[in-house]
């Protein structure tokens, strides 16, 4: 088998204009075989637009693309695939009603005989070596429904290899991976590089970018803000280029020592992880971090507490009063709010105006003479817009036109326009740019200082260590340990997360 053909990809002066938005302006980029390029930038900087242009999903308004000396105004999906460009998206594109082999060969099924029936054996045999190349622990017959997120990602990489990919573009590939899964992925990237395959690695997790790339391209506001060679790469340099300023340290201590219990969770078991029961208490004025590996049951616990389903047994108390939430409506009337993990699915109605989203949970407060008053909705939303510095020209615009960070602020605005007692943040900064991140941390601290209970579920070590006053670590539905601020370390969290006891120092 010969290696992949040498890649020569050049983007010249790429510009993309959407109604009212310039997504990319005059961007040029060259990628050669076997190099790993980090592409970073705040949300809305134009990374996804650039990737869509490379994938042939959208056509640039201006500029040219040249592949192996051939010039294009814009690519089609077929041209992009033929050129050996493959994607591993943040949101995975696997079909979980099919098995691994069927997913790899989706649309290119191997067939036999004159009736062109599916040749399962040939597909299996062809997929196995690809799975070996990415170090997958599962076989070609495995139903995708049984695979974890990380495994599905390996499947997507295997699929890229099956198409003789010369360039694999990974969009936030580690955002839902645990540390060991991330390390494995970084190893796979190094293997791809050794095989002469180019990789574009897009991530907000700068330490991972730093670890695996040869050079970095930074986008800001649709333009190239700067390029960093291998020896220039540092966390500070990247952040400076992304936001044009230095970031302060994350942790701000609370103004007052923790007070009485605001939220207590006793023996709560969930349907997803019934093996262990969770017990913890949240006190007034503190930010409680909930750490753990993906699949430890943190989101399930949060949704069970919030009444969104899946609670088997146990007791929840808010401000001392028992709360047996049969639906989120019950939790909300008790003052317990959830900022959900998947804001596009459960946090927002993307197609709706911002002001509808902000007032959705409390429309009754916008009634005038028995009618929902749009001007009152706008008033409430404007108040939150200035409070949270939500960036939008008009609160009547649809939420989907905004960047992830601003969308998350809209979810927050919904709850802050009401009267929160406890807010559970589930992965509050996933897929959000650095600038919005620090604003959300500040906001959480301000809420805690005002006496609102803040629970923050996070898989981002830097975040959970940098923001929390206290951390509980979950494993398999239960709490496997608790850490005081003085004991915070990646090592300690990870030890508890995999179910080992901490060594006494």
């Amino acid at each position, binding site marked *: 088998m010969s290696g992949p053909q040498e890649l020569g990809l050049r983007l010249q002066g790429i*510009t993309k*204009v*959407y*109604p*009212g*938005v*310039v997504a990319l*302006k005059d961007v040029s980029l060259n990628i050669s075989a076997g190099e790993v390029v980090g592409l970073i930038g705040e949300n809305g900087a134009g990374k996804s637009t650039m990737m869509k242009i490379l994938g042939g999903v959208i056509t640039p*308004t*201006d500029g040219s693309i040249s592949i192996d000396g051939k010039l294009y105004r814009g690519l089609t999906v077929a041209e992009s695939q033929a050129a050996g460009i493959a994607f591993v998206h943040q949101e995975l594109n696997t079909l979980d009603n099919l098995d691994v082999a069927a997913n790899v060969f989706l649309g290119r099924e191997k067939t036999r005989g004159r009736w062109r029936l599916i040749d399962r054996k040939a597909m299996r045999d062809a997929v196995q070596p690809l799975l070996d190349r990415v170090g997958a622990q599962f076989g070609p017959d495995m139903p995708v429904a049984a695979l974890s997120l990380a495994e599905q990602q390996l499947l997507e990489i295997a699929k890229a290899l099956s198409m003789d990919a010369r360039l694999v573009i990974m969009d936030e590939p580690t955002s839902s991976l645990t540390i060991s899964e991330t390390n494995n992925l970084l190893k796979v990237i190094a293997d791809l590089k050794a095989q002469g395959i180019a990789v574009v690695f897009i991530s907000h997790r700068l330490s991972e970018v730093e670890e695996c790339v040869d050079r970095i391209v930074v986008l800001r506001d649709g333009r190239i803000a700067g390029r960093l060679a291998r020896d220039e790469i540092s966390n500070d340099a990247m952040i400076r280029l992304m936001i044009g300023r230095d970031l302060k340290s994350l942790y701000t201590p609370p103004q007052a020592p923790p007070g009485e219990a605001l939220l207590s969770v006793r023996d709560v078991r969930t349907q997803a992880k019934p093996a262990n029961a969770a017990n913890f208490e949240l006190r007034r004025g503190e930010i409680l971090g909930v750490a753990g590996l993906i699949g430890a049951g943190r989101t399930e616990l949060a949704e069970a507490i*919030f009444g*969104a389903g899946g609670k088997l047994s146990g007791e929840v108390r808010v401000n001392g009063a028992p709360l047996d939430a049969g*639906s*989120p*409506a019950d*939790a*909300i*009337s008790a003052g317990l709010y*959830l900022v*959900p993990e998947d804001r596009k*699915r*459960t*946090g*927002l*109605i*993307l*197609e*709706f105006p911002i002001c*509808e989203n902000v007032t*959705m*949970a409390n*429309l*009754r407060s916008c*009634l005038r003479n*028995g*009618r*929902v008053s749009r001007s009152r909705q706008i008033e409430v939303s404007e108040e939150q817009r200035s409070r949270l510095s939500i960036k939008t020209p008009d609160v009547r615009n649809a939420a989907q036109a905004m960047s992830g960070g601003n969308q998350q602020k809209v979810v927050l605005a*919904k709850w802050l326009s009401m009267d929160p007692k406890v807010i559970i943040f589930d992965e509050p900064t996933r897929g959000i740019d650095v600038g919005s991140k620090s604003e959300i941390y500040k906001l959480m601290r301000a809420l805690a200082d005002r006496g609102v209970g803040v629970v923050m579920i996070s898989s981002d070590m830097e975040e959970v260590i940098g923001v929390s006053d206290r951390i509980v670590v979950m494993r398999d539905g239960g709490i496997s340990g608790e850490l005081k601020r003085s004991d915070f370390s990646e090592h300690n969290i990870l030890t508890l997360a995999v179910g080992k006891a901490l060594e006494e120092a």
Partner: protein
Amino acid sequence: MQKKDLGLAILIIVVGAVVYLRNPLFLSPINLGNTANLVGLFGIFAIGQGFVIMTGGIDLSVGSVIALLGVLFVEMVGGYAVPWPAAVAITIALGALIGLAHGILITRFKMQPFVVTLCGLLIYRGIARGYTAEATAGFPFGASYPQLEWLTIGRSYGIPHSFIAMIIIAVVMWFVLHQSVFGRHLYAVGKNDEAARFSGIRSGFVITSAYVICSVLAAVAAIYFAMFTKSVQPSSHGNFYELYAIAAAVLGGFSLRGGEGSIVGVVLGAVLLQELQNLVNLLGIPSSLNFAVMGTVILLGVLADQQLAAYRAKKRAAQAFERLQSERVES
């Protein structure tokens, strides 16, 4: 009024003008009165269907409900001499019950709306035919119910009361859908059920209410139809009416995926459908082609609407690019 509704209104006027030029009888008081009556009858339950479609669901049982409740209403008033106000109340209560059953099966037992209401279509039609043993239900010879008749088939200043009833229902439902908290919740649940639930909206209640509204309006329509036809033939009465309702809603800008549509739209949709039927009659097109004309117009209408929307989006993008280019020249 939304842009979509305006476009539909213009289409109605244009079609009307064309028909009038070919056959001036179109605007004769008799023809207008008859068409208005049909618009009223079909509009009443089309509005109900709109509520269900708003949730992303569908109610296929409307025609059968109109047949079954029509049979029962005629039997109660004509056969058992139940005072008509009581019969009206019972009929509407039965409609509410049917809607409640649909809603509970769909929200509690997680059944698909298509399946639930398809079974409803078969069951209610079957009961209507079984109950009457295929005989036509009618009022006794010479019986007369002046007040009931005035309310249902009477006219004021030439305007059929069925049309007035539809307008009153449309106004009430306009407030419910476009002005009330419940209406907003309906839009939210229809667009994104999960996000609505996570915002504390009781989506099961909202969806069930939509089915109750739909079946209650079908019950009201059942009374109007029974009084209009004076007798109910259980195997054919109301056949395919659910499709008229769905067609009116789709023409009126409702999306079958849920979360989109307006009361003005569905009413205009009902108007256009009856105008087309009228067109077939007045222009001497064989009435066997009735459905073909209707289908073609709906298809073209929805196609044109979507193509236009895509074209507008493209144009906006081009304009934005030109602005950028001129900025670049200046700088």
